[in-house]
């Protein structure tokens, strides 16, 4: 099952390319010219977003490397305990929204310490598989636009994230 699904994942890019190419050939379009024209636009976008990305990376790193994030974890721990979330998952829950790579390191640690097939190990895996890096996504994606007032995007992202966290823990209890 897992191998079939991971093949789907690998096939995504080739299939997309085949569809686009075959349609273009069918339409007898100047494929190469269109491609080059488009890549120029892509590189321009990359250059345009660079300043914002650097600003966001620096801002997030400031909170992580100074230890401010850990401090926040300590503050919020009782709240999670009260809600019935295992203590071992708290740092993951708090780190996941800001740092994708950081949270993967943490999952690795949790899985090795408590066992991949233990309840905590499974819950941590499911959480990483189903919950996005909310703050990071908001910062990077809005960073690419001229928007400074994000309206309800933040609260919706956070609620969705919290629902995902609870759903992960509950699903792991039953499955």
């Amino acid at each position, binding site marked *: 099952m*897992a191998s079939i699904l991971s093949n789907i994942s690998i096939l995504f890019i080739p299939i997309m390319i085949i569809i686009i190419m075959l349609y273009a050939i069918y339409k007898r379009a100047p494929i190469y010219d269109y*491609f080059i024209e*488009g890549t120029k636009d892509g590189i321009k976008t990359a250059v345009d977003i660079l300043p914002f990305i650097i600003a966001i990376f620096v801002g997030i790193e400031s909170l992580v490397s100074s230890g401010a994030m850990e401090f926040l974890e300590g503050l919020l721990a009782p709240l999670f305990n009260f809600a019935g979330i295992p203590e071992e998952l708290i740092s993951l829950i708090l780190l996941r929204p800001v740092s994708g790579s950081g949270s993967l390191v943490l999952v690795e640690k949790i*899985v090795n310490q408590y066992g991949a097939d233990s309840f905590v190990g499974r819950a941590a895996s499911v959480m990483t598989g189903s919950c996005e890096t909310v703050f990071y996504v908001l910062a990077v994606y809005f960073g690419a636009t001229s928007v400074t007032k994000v*309206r309800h995007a933040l609260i919706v992202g956070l609620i969705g994230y919290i629902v995902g966290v609870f759903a992960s823990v509950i699903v792991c209890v039953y499955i």
Partner: protein
Amino acid sequence: MMNYIWSGMLLFGIAFAAVTGNLDKFTDGLLNSCTEGVYFVIGLAGIMAVWSGLMNIAKETGLIDLIARNTKPVIRFLFPRGLSKDTIAMILMSFTANLFGAGNSATVFSIKAMTMMDEENRRSTIASNEMCMFLAVNMSMIQLVPITVIKIRSEAGSLDPGSIIVPSIIAGLLSMIASILICKFFERKTM
């Protein structure tokens, strides 16, 4: 707003590092992160160029129109005020890439979709309903195969590394439904 948040992040970080004696770590981290930011964008630039090229072929040949026409019901539900065909195609590509876990390609489509919606929003400083809904779906999008986590699990000696696939999809779907509904709720409230 960004002025306060960003300077707050930096100043709070420095103050905290000073109190806890982490100033050396802070400085290292800061310098590393700017380089990381540049590498990140350089890594994206190539993928972005290739996908923009391919999408341009799809656009010029009319494939995008075809896709946009056939996915109208879903798009209508999420974005009732309507968007241009090119933007819709980019949004759909972003969702599909996310679904298939095509990491950097998904990021590229999403950033592109956001900048296109920004144009349609006339570069306003206030986020449009469409942007919020796009992000709500994007942030909660399920991933068919969380391949990185599965790898980590199998390296840690799991007997069934893929056993988290179905639970992840269930949890992801719940989070997605909640996000969309809440986003719709806020849209009505703030209209």
